């Protein structure tokens, strides 16, 4: 065995992650549907997870992968909470368009 990064190069992973992250950001900016926005955030988190694993290999260190567990736990918790709030909103105003949330301003 050898370090897989010898074939791919850490910077490729960095770029991949960065672009994936940016796509996530783009999604958050681009869409009004709250669920899609949540998905975009998930994409962002996944991009980071991917990079964690890459760095874990890069350093030949388990901690990076352990951190991914926490990251996943957090992602799961966030999604659960977010969706709960979303459901509450949907019950109140019948829409999940975040552009409708403009009562608080000024």
């Amino acid at each position, binding site marked *: 065995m050898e370090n897989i990064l010898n074939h791919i190069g850490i910077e490729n992973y960095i770029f991949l992650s960065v672009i994936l992250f940016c796509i996530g950001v783009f999604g958050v900016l681009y869409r009004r549907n709250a669920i899609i926005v949540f998905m975009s955030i998930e994409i962002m988190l996944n991009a*980071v997870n991917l*990079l964690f694993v890459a760095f874990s290999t890069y350093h030949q260190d388990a901690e990076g992968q352990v*951190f991914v567990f*926490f990251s996943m736990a957090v992602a799961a918790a966030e999604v659960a909470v977010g969706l709960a709030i979303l459901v509450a909103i949907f019950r109140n105003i019948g829409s999940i368009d975040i552009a409708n949330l403009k009562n608080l301003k000024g």
Partner: protein
Amino acid sequence: MNTLIAISGLGIFCLFAEIINLRKAIVPVAVLGLIAILGITVSEFDHPSAWYNNMVIVNNFSVAFSSLFIVLTIFILAMSGDFYKDKPSKFSDFIAIKIFLLAGAVAMVSFGNLSMFFLGIEILSISLYILAGSDRLSILSNEAGMKYFLLGSFASGFILFGICLVYGATGYFDVAEIYALSQGAGLPVWFYFGIAMILIGMLFKIAAAPFHFWAPDVYEGSPTLVTATMSTLAKVVAVATLYKLVTSLNANMPHLFQVVIVAIAILTMAVGNLLALRQENVKRMMAFSGISHAGFMLLALLSLTTAAGTLFYYTAAYAFAGIASFAVITSVTKNKATQNVSDFNGLGKTNPVLAAVLTMSLLSMAGIPIFAGFFAKFSLFTQTIEAGYLVAVIAGVISSIISIGYYFKLILAMYNKDADAETTSFPWVYTVVAVLAIALNIGMGIYPGCMFDLLK
């Protein structure tokens, strides 16, 4: 570490209390428990220790801030008893979440490993998302929760990315190791990207411009007591964490970073104060006031080696004043649909004690002497001047002047107008909390040395 365990245990106890029908006892038990925990925490002062492979590091900084958080939580919990009395079925949940929130907060100032930091900030954030949206039938509360959640998790993504890059650059999550490596040369530039990203994420959490937009909306929409929590506890936690992060990851912050901090601090003070001028909603006004205070607190990052004491003093002064004012605000607007300045008309006559407390806390926030807010601002200014950023001080002074405008709007309303509506009763618990908090604030003002010296 003991603090953390005890707090988590207390939270779980609250959940159990519900099951065994001890609902009435929850608040007293929680408050007493927290007081006991406060004792435990304080006893750890001057006994620095590291726990479980440096996951949790107890030092004076963490003890001081943890104690502050605990005190603030005690105040908030004390008010919760009355605040949630018409939601008995969820009572224990609210209390438990607030205690878990405290656990997250304690983790944030005593982390020794970035994983603890990340989990802490997420516990805090998620609890706050929930609390913000906890008034499920209110559209405003929903909106607040949603906004906070969306923006907050977005920012969390950046923080996570930052942590990842730091890890990539150093190979460690352990703060001490990272610090050691950061002192030497040869770190990949990612390290600084990572630091910058964490920094930006934290700037979002403390609501510094241009990452502040969520704060006013969320503060306004959330139930008042939650707003109180956010504007006092959450803000203080975020600032303390930011300070700890910056000091422990990278003590010799490059000059460029400082310039960014100064620029953001100035922008934040300006935005906070200017926008606060126009607000009619008190909670919203307090949000902007909080933003401007965040700008002040950022100045502490300019003198990293010496500012811990000052920052502690500032945050405590700000938080106590905030608790006092929010206790009054909660008490006054409890039965009202709005929280406008006009709702405070005539408070000076109908309830002079609350009016006096609110006046004093606003004066403290405005930085009028003898209240702790003054010494806080002053020593911050002194240190910033010593760090060589006179321009930031001037901006701080100008924004302080502007801030008088809106603080006094509220004071004027209380004393110079007659009450519009019938007066309602003011539950005693708010008054007690308000008076205690402001007494602490004044005490700090009369004898500031006691707190400045703690973190020498």
